């Protein structure tokens, strides 16, 4: 057994660490007790029980996958997501005991990503980082070379909402936050290393290429053609930005609304949470949700609204944005279904007044979001977003 792998097993949770966490969970207690026993006594025991323990751990992963997919994700008890993450860790270790071949490591890294996406790993971040590091080593990847994007020349065009040049916190609070006024904030994220670094897509490939993320396929999430898939960032980047010229029947893929920065801490160092997000009616303010939006030209988020304050920061590329006030909700034809009730049926870029006559009454606001700009949107403001070029935006949501 590799010594490096043995060192990793020392980071695995011990029975005494998790016993209290999973108190009333009969299945998890029985299975994780066996698994921790096995891992704590690796040298001293034979393999007679290994097969059964490994099977039980896999069953615990499957079982909690089902529990996580029952009911609304927001209602899933934290304990279920913790057990899922724990079971995934042990499944990975059992798989690595069988083999540490590159293919097996690749498989394990996929499991780790799923644990990250569905589970709750907050209690074991050190193990997560060490395991990710270990699994990323020795792969035969990065054979693709991606372009370094050219900076866009700034376009001056009409903007239907107020613009402020790097406002102070007080100014932001009175003119934007309290006034409920969508505003374009200029030159407020110039210090982000991301603005330069991420233009080189090979940097993103190197830091994040091996992670699996949810990708939206199809240009618009409200259309019937739309679907979602888990994909390695490497594959996504090379398909959407690689030198492949034959792009005629290529579908648009969009890494949208994903908490990329908790998954890949290295990328988080390239950005910082703007101070504006600390302004809140709550005291102390709730945590800020940071989401990544990366895709080629032509990705569309149809007219929709979100419940929280939103600061959308443009790292590279440009986005055409159309806004409408919450007071116009009744004139915007929201979808009936529960999933899409925050989404309008209209195509904001091509208004069809025959089918949707009430749109005549709506006041729309248009703007172009360019690199280094931030758009502040108060809660429930409707927005349509279309990328005009390969684009990376970071959004901050807070209450």
């Amino acid at each position, binding site marked *: 057994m590799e010594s490096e792998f043995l060192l990793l097993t020392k980071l695995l949770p011990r029975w005494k660490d998790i016993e209290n966490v999973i108190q009333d969970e009969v299945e998890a207690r029985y299975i994780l007790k066996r698994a921790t026993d096995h891992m704590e006594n690796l040298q001293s025991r034979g393999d007679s029980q290994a097969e059964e323990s490994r099977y039980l751990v896999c069953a615990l992963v499957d079982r909690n996958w*089902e529990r996580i997919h*029952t009911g609304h994700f927001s209602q899933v008890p934290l304990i279920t997501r913790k057990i899922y993450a724990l079971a995934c860790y042990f499944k990975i270790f059992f798989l690595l005991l069988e083999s540490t071949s590159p293919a097996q490591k690749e498989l394990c890294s996929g499991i780790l990503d799923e644990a990250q996406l569905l589970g709750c790993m907050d209690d074991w971040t050190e193990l997560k980082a060490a395991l990710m590091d270990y699994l990323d080593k020795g792969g035969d990847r990065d054979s693709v070379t991606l372009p370094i994007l050219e900076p866009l020349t700034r376009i001056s065009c009409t903007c239907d909402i107020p613009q402020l040049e790097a406002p102070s916190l007080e100014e932001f609070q009175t003119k934007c936050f309290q006034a409920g006024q969508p505003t374009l904030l200029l030159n407020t994220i110039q210090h982000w290393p991301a603005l330069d670094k991420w233009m080189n897509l090979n940097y993103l490939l190197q830091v994040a290429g091996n992670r699996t993320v949810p990708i939206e396929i199809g240009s618009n999430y409200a259309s019937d053609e739309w679907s979602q898939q*888990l994909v390695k960032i490497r594959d996504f980047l090379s398909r959407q930005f690689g030198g492949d010229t034959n792009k005629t029947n290529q579908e648009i893929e969009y890494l949208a609304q994903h908490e990329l920065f908790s998954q890949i801490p290295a990328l988080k160092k390239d950005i910082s949470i703007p101070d504006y997000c600390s302004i809140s009616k709550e005291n102390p303010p709730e945590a800020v949700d940071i989401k990544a939006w990366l895709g080629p030209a032509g990705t569309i988020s149809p007219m929709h609204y979100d419940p929280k304050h939103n600061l959308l920061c443009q790292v590279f590329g440009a986005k055409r944005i159309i806004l409408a006030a919450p007071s116009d909700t009744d004139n915007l034809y929201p979808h009936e279904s529960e999933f899409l009730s925050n989404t309008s049926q209209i195509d904001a870029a091509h208004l069809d007044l025959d089918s949707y006559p009430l749109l005549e009454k709506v006041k729309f606001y248009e703007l172009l979001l360019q690199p280094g700009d931030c758009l502040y949107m108060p809660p429930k403001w409707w927005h349509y977003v279309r990328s005009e070029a390969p684009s990376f935006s970071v959004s901050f949501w807070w209450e």
Partner: protein
Amino acid sequence: MPLLFTGFNAFGQHECISRDVDCAAGFSEINAPVSTQNQCTISIGFRYAALAFGRKLWLRGLLDDGPNECVTLKAAGDIKALAAGDSHCLVLLESGQLYRVQPKLQAELLVVRLEAPPRSNSGTKRSFFGAPKAPSSPIIEHIACGSHINVAVSSENAVFSIPSCLHQFAERQFRVKQLQCGHEHAVLLNVNGDVFTWGNGLRGQLGQPVLKVEETPQLMEALAGIKITQIAAGGWHSAAISAFGDLYTWGLNCSGQLGMRVMKPGGFLKEPTVYPLPQLQDLPECGCSKEAKSNEHDDDDCAPLRVFAGSRHTLLTRRCGRLWASGWCQHGQLGTQLQNRSYMDAFQALDGIRLNTCSDDVLCGPWSTLLSLKGSGN
């Protein structure tokens, strides 16, 4: 009554008679605590199985600390039906009284008190002296449960989300034929052949065009006008068979449980994972009786007859007695011969099984399948 089992049994929920696999499809015979000729009632939960005969009830599996734990209880009367859920098992007596029991070593049968349904048509009953009579507790005829749903239907067609009354079917002649639950939705079939669904439909479980939660039973418009004879509810999917011998499936298809193709990672063909409306399944020709009576072979001989569903798998019997299946098979729920695959996304015959369609029965646990063979066929 031989019981043939296949699927997840890591907690000793079912006591295998031998370690040998019994038939070609990879089912094994399990032991029932009652003698062979007797018909017993069985329900399979995730970590335990419940089995009843007469007034006796057995719970077996992982109850408190480890596998193969077993408790025996005695009910106040003969047991008619069981519904094994995660946190409790519903126990219905022939008398129509409902009990529940937690799957643990110190298990106890506890009375379930149901809220009285509003009595709009009959008025308040009064005793001889004019005092209003306390409403008698409803007589329950059907039960079903999933991890997020518990349903009972009374003799007067009151539908309970235990313990509260959700709905009352007003029509006198309304008779419930089948009631089934998935993890979080319910499907009800009446003798007229109408299908009603309610509960969480965010994964297409309810067969309605709009994905949403329905608090009360809704008629499935998409099947209106088609007489349905059999239904099944899986974890997040549902299935129905019509009097014409057509099979419909709808809901989540993450593991091929609808018999619809699953999108392969990195594949070029896009397939939806959720089918909100019933999909008519064009089953492959059974082909079983071709050799036997090639001249008089009739397609109807192999028409789908009954359908059954586990968390992510679906089984159907055809008139010829063959068993067909689709869906998740990682834990052997479709027989150990398929265990090396993780799922099947098209219906396929399970070799070596021929059921007596009059007397044999099929039961699905979340990750398992049980055949109860009363006839001679095997």
